[in-house]
C-alpha cells in the first residue's frame, strides 16, 4: 500500500493535499466566508437600512424640539444661577456629553435688539441687564441645540456619526429657517423679540457677560 501511495498521482504529498482541500471545503461549507447577492437587491436593502439624518432632524425639529421651546429654561433664571455659581448652574441646568468641558442649555426669553452689525445681532434682555444675548448669523457649528434640549440620547443611535449628522442637520435648519427671519431688513434695533434656543458655555469660574444663542424660535412681539 505504501509503495502504491509513493508512486504517481497517489503519492503521499498528493493525498495530503487532497485531504487538506477536502477539510477546507467542508469547513467553508459550514462556515462560509462570503455570500453573493445581486447588486441592486443589496443596494436597495442598504438604502432601506441607512439612517436618514435629514428626515430625522426634520421630524425632530417640527415635533419635540419646537414643543420643548415652551418648556425651556427662562434665560433670567440661568443668568441668576450662573452669577451665583457657574459650576452649580452647570450641574443643575446644563447638559454635557462625555468628558466635554462645556455645558449646553436650552433657554427662552424676550429682549430688544440693541444692535445689528456685520451679521451680529445683540439683544438686551427684558428682565435682566446682567448679560446680553448675541446671535451670529452665518454658518452654525456645535451641538448646543441637540445637547441643550436634552431630548436626544446618544445610546438611541447605532453610532456617533448618526448622532453628529443630526446635529449638523439641526444647525442647517437654523440657517435655513431662523436666520432669514433675523436677516429681515425690518428687524432693526429697537425691535422686541421672543426667542428660544441653545447656548453652549465652556466651564468657567465667572458668569459670562454675553451669551451666544443658536436660535430655534425667533418671533417679533
Amino acid at each position: 500500500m505504501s509503495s502504491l501511495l509513493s508512486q504517481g498521482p497517489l503519492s503521499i504529498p498528493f493525498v495530503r493535499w487532497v485531504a487538506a482541500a477536502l477539510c477546507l471545503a467542508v469547513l467553508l461549507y459550514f462556515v462560509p466566508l462570503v455570500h453573493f447577492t445581486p447588486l441592486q437587491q443589496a443596494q436597495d436593502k442598504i438604502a432601506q437600512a441607512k439612517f436618514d439624518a435629514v428626515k430625522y432632524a426634520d421630524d425632530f425639529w417640527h415635533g419635540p424640539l419646537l414643543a420643548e421651546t415652551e418648556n425651556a429654561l427662562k434665560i433670567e433664571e440661568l443668568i441668576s444661577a450662573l452669577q451665583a455659581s457657574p459650576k452649580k448652574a452647570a450641574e443643575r441646568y446644563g447638559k454635557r456629553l462625555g468628558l466635554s468641558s462645556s455645558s449646553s442649555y436650552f433657554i427662552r426669553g424676550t429682549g430688544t435688539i440693541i444692535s445689528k452689525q456685520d451679521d451680529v445681532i445683540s439683544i438686551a434682555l427684558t428682565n435682566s441687564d446682567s448679560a446680553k444675548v448675541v446671535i451670529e448669523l452665518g454658518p452654525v457649528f456645535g451641538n448646543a441645540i441637540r445637547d441643550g434640549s436634552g431630548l436626544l440620547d446618544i445610546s438611541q443611535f447605532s453610532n456617533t456619526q448618526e448622532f453628529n449628522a443630526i446635529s449638523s442637520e439641526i444647525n442647517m435648519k437654523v440657517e435655513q429657517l431662523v436666520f432669514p427671519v433675523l436677516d429681515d431688513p425690518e428687524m432693526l434695533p429697537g425691535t422686541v423679540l421672543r426667542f428660544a434656543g441653545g447656548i453652549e458655555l465652556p466651564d468657567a469660574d465667572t458668569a459670562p457677560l454675553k451669551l451666544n444663542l443658536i436660535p430655534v424660535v425667533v418671533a417679533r412681539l
Partner: protein
Amino acid sequence: MNFMPKLNRELLAKSQSLIALLIMVIAMSMLSDTFLTPDNGWNILRQISVNLCLSIGMTLIILSGGIDLSVGAILALAGAVAAGVLRNGIALPWLDTLIQFTLAGAIVAGVLVGLALGWFNGFVITRFRLPPFVATLGMFSIARGLTMLWTGGFPITGLGASFGYIGTGVMLGVPMPVWIGAALVAIFVVLTLKTRFGRYLYAVGGNERAARLTGLKVDNIKIWVYTLGGGLAAVAGLLVTARLDSAQPNAGLGYELDSIAAVVIGGTSLSGGRGSIMGTVLGCLIIGVLNNGLFLLNVSPFWQQVIKGLVILAAVAIDKLNSKENQD
C-alpha cells in the same frame, strides 16, 4: 572585584524582567488602593493584549536580526479592510454582484492582508537586500496611505455585536482579547522552542553567515518571519477594531515603538539570536503595569512618556551590560 558567582549572575540576568515586574507591582500596590484588584488585573491584561500580539511578531523578527517599523500601519490597514468588507462588502458592478463577507470572512480578509504585507516586507528585504529598517519604513508609508484610500479618511463604524465580541466579549470569566493573546503566546512559545523553525530562527539571528554556510534557507526563514509578523499585526488590528466597534484610519500610530519596547524590555537582544516569547510577555506586562499604574496615580501623560522612555533606556543598557559580561 566579582562578588557574585557567574551562575548567580546569569540567573539574575535571566530573571531581571520578572524582578522588575514584581518590584513595579509591589510599588504600585503600595501607592494606589485600586491597583491590586481583580478588575484592574483584567483591565491590564485586556490593555496589553494588542501590544502582545504585535510584540510576539516583533520578537520573531528581532530574533532573526531584523526590525519591523510597519506593524502599526499594518494593524490599521488590516482592521480597516476587515471592517470595510464586513460593513460594505465588495461590489463587482460588471458582474452585478455584491460580495458580502460573513464575520469569519472579514476576519480571514484582515489576516490575509497582514500576511500579504508581511510577506512583501520579507520579500523586499531578502530579494533586494534592503536594510529591514528602510524596507519596513517604506511599508509603513504604503500601508498608512492604503488605509486612508480604503477608508477615505473616515472611521468605519457599526460593525455589529458579533464582531465586537472579539474585542469586548468575555468567555468563562476571561476577556476574549486575553484568550487570544494567551493562545498566541502558547503557539509561538512552542514554535520557537520546540520546532525546527524555532531553532533555525535563533541560528539565523545569532549568526546569519554561519547559518547560510550550514545550508539553512535563510531568506525563506526571514520571509516566513516577516509574514508571521504581518499576520500577528493583523490580529492586533482586528482586536483594536472590535474593541472600538470602529476602524480608525489612524489606528496603531506609534504602536511599533511600544512593541519594540516590550521586546527589548523583555530581554530580546536587538542584534538578534537571543531572547524569548515569555520575555516579551513580561515586557508587555511591565509596560502595561507602568501605563496603568501611572494613570491610576494621576501622573501627567507627558511625564508618562518620559518615564516609559527611561525604562526602555534602562532595559537596553542592562542588556548591553549583560552581553558585555557574557563576552568577558
